[in-house]
């Protein structure tokens, strides 16, 4: 090929422009400015600057990748570094153009976030000419360093990347959970060394450990396995000790795990895309509220939380069947839109004056009691955590058991091909309705806990965004995969709670995540084996895909790393 022997100037420029567009987007939507108050390293690097830094790293990475794709054999190292430098330079040149343009024209009339504060961040606080040159140089340097890192041998390159990646991770966790300001320079260095050193040590120790494990008897191996499980369980049980705010976040994550497991049955196992899932969540919450709140006068009998919980689950299951019957004959995208309509209908009904005497209309229902076990009232986030954990465990157990049962296999057969499944003797009506009912039950339980957690519910809490949120959780985690739901909930519900300044951009990032996942990794972060094989049908050999899957499962850190 002709391009093989010459340096391709156009690819790094293209990648730089792409990364520059991302930089422009995060600048003009206000993300950079909003996150500039949180420090990663105190006095040195703010979160906003880190975001910009990431676009430059992205540019460098893409520049090198593209250069490797363009050439058939590995290009000279200098070319790669040149590509990275150029891409990083172009990225920041886009931002420089923005600042220069913005200093002549007042962009703020159109773009609300094109504020002087943003220009100040972009010019590194140095003012217009000096700062802009600084920005360009910074882009070039970061691009070059990224390229350099990528040309190093694999082990040191990965160790450095892990160490660097750990710094913002730790800093964000620290500042979000313990109200710290960020890391000191020394702290950042220590964490970098821990990360990089840890990777090296792990690389040395892991093979040896495996050899030793293989040498153990089957019984001893079992013991080790059990020890791992026990350690995991202990960590999960002790998590609320982190404090009230982290428990609050975990509660929310737990609720989404509950709902995600339910939707996973409908979408993941049975292949029925349900966009109105929030309806069942709402029905569970409203059943709980109506049955327990003293505010509802038309129902004289008042139950406790535990008394009302079965009714909430039952009401949700019944509504799952009732809403499922009309859509039995529909497939694919029609089903999605109709269920979305159901979700909206339920919300609009809850909001209407018509039903106000029964369920409170726009005033909602308040005074929902907290659950009581013997002498203990579960009224703080840490105690509620255990309630949600117990609920999630039960639901996860059911989901795991159902998955490989006759019913679970019928769902999957139906997902693959309805006609063939029917021909094989699967009763489609019964199987579909059971999927809707099971999924709805889980959502109903989540709704009931949600109601008692907040003690008051309003129709506005049950909008379409919840459905989309749960859908994102299972898609990012991996459709059909049970551990995927937990990973997805941690990333998509836990992370945004920690990064409060991004609250406004949450849905923007969800949207981007959905598109990005579908384009690059439709099987999710923690994929289900069968799903992955299907989606990559015909690409590599199926055996290769399966092996890759096993490697991934054995190494969850790979999933975490690719999410960043």
């Amino acid at each position, binding site marked *: 090929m002709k391009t093989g022997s010459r340096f391709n100037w156009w690819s790094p420029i293209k990648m730089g422009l792409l990364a520059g567009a991302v930089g422009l987007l995060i600048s003009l939507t206000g993300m950079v400015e909003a996150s500039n108050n949180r420090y990663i390293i105190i006095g040195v690097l703010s979160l906003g600057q880190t975001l910009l830094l990431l676009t430059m790293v992205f540019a460098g990475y893409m520049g090198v990748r593209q250069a490797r794709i363009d050439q058939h054999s590995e290009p000279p190292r200098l070319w790669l570094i040149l590509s990275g430098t150029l891409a990083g330079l172009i990225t920041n040149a886009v931002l420089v153009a923005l600042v220069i343009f913005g200093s002549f024209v007042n962009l703020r009339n159109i773009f609300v976030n094109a504020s002087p504060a943003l220009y100040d961040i972009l010019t590194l606080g140095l003012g217009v000419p000096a700062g802009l040159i600084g920005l360009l140089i910074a882009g070039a340097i970061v691009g070059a360093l990224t390229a350099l890192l990528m040309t190093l041998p694999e082990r040191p390159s990965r160790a450095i990347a892990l160490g660097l990646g750990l710094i913002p991770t730790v800093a964000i966790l620290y500042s979000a959970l313990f109200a710290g300001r960020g890391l000191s320079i020394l702290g950042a260095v220590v964490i970098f060394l821990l990360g990089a050193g840890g990777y090296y040590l792990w690389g040395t120790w892991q093979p040896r450990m495996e050899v030793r494990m293989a040498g153990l008897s089957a019984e001893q191996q079992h013991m080790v396995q059990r020890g791992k499980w026990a350690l995991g369980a202990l960590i999960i049980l002790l998590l609320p000790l982190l404090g009230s705010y982290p428990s609050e976040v975990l509660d929310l994550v737990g609720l989404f795990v509950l709902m995600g497991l339910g939707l996973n049955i409908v979408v993941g196992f049975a292949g029925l895309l349900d966009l109105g899932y929030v309806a069942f969540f709402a029905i569970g919450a409203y059943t709980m509220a109506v049955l327990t709140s003293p505010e509802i006068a038309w129902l004289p009998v008042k139950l406790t939380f535990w008394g009302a919980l079965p009714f909430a689950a039952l009401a949700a299951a019944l509504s799952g069947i009732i809403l499922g019957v*009309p859509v039995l004959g529909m497939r694919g995208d029609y089903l999605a839109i109709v269920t979305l309509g159901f979700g909206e209908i339920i919300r609009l009904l809850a909001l209407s004056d018509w039903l106000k005497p029964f369920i409170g209309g726009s005033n909602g229902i308040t005074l929902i009691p907290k659950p009581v076990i013997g002498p203990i009232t579960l009224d703080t986030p840490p105690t509620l955590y255990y309630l949600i954990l117990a609920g999630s465990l039960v639901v996860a157990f059911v989901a795991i058991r159902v998955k490989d049962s006759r019913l679970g296999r019928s769902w999957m057969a139906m997902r693959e091909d309805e006609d063939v499944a029917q021909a094989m003797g699967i009763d489609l009506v019964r199987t579909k309705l059971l999927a809707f009912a099971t999924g709805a039950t889980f959502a109903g339980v989540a709704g009931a806990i949600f109601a008692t957690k907040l003690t008051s519910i309003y129709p506005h809490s049950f909008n379409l965004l919840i459905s989309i949120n749960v859908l994102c959780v299972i898609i990012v985690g991996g459709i059909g995969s049970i551990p995927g739901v937990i990973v997805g909930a941690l990333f998509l519900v836990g992370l945004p709670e920690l990064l409060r300044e991004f609250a406004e951009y949450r849905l923007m990032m969800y*949207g981007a995540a959905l598109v990005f996942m*579908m384009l690059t990794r439709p099987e999710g972060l923690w994929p289900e084996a069968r799903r992955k094989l299907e989606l990559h049908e015909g690409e590599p050999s199926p055996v290769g895909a399966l092996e890759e899957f096993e490697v991934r499962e054995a190494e969850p850190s790979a999933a975490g790393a690719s999410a960043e």
Partner: protein
Amino acid sequence: MLQRLTRRVSGTTLFMWLIGIAILAVVVYGTIATLASGKYGLKDWTDLTINGLALGGIYALIALGYTLVYGILRMINFAHGEVFMAGPMTAYFIITAFDESGFLNRQPILALLIVFLFAAAVSTTIAVLLERIAYRPLRRAPRLVPLITAIGASFFLQYTFRGLFGSGIKSYPLPDILQGDWTVGPITILKIRAVVIVAAIIMLVGLYIFVQRTKVGKAMQAVSEDKDTSALMGIDVDSVIVTTFVVGGALAGAAGVLYALMFRQVTFIMGFIPGLKAFTAAVLGGIGNVAGAALGGLFLGIAESVFPNLVLDGLGIPAPYQLRDALAFVLLVLVLIFRPSGILGERLAAKKA
């Protein structure tokens, strides 16, 4: 005889028909009750109908975008509502600039033409980018994958626009000549509504002729029949698909400006509900069918405007307008259950594409 009947009709079908009959009975009862009460006069009904017609024209224009794309790619372009929003949202800055400089009232037709063209251009750009970045790589993927992508794109666009232009409601200026109303015989009609109805009808007819008569339109029809065969016949399928997005985007952008002029405001979220309703309209008319989308849009607009007062009021439901949006969804569900083919279309809801 009875045995033959029960064998044909399964339990669920029977259940569905019972529901259908019950709904019909309620509708008839509500209508009679309202009409008997004489709460609304003839003027109220004509007002509601004209309002519905204007709204329906806008739904029809958006619905065309859904229908064209569905016809060709067999996918629901969930982000089409955001394409509709993008045009008027960006054109807002032009129309306010025109308003402040007085150009809007000095040369209203020219100014509005520029605003329309700009909005259509922006919407078209977004639609084409969507196709290029998000949909094209997934053309051979399992069916739910592009739909999920479209949902993601929809939310991404909504909240990107919010981040770029702010979350507040922006009020759209209206040139003086479009304010006030005209009186034609016994009917008094708001000028802007009349303009919206006329503009929508012109665009709908124009599109119909484009699809039926021009070479590009015929190529679009061919591709929607069979992609592979049309490729063999020398049609550039990719460029036809892009053209489809261009046409749908331009119509949506123009419809967006009409909508903004009619309601005098824009927000980043304005595309979502109209988008869903336009999809309903497309299904109502028979998805994939151009004339059907137009009919479905007009029908939905009128139904939404007249129905709450006509039926729900008679049933004694307080504040029936609150359930206006729910009505569209109920209608969608009913159509998909009882006549999935829509008014004019072929049966697609259960068909495997």
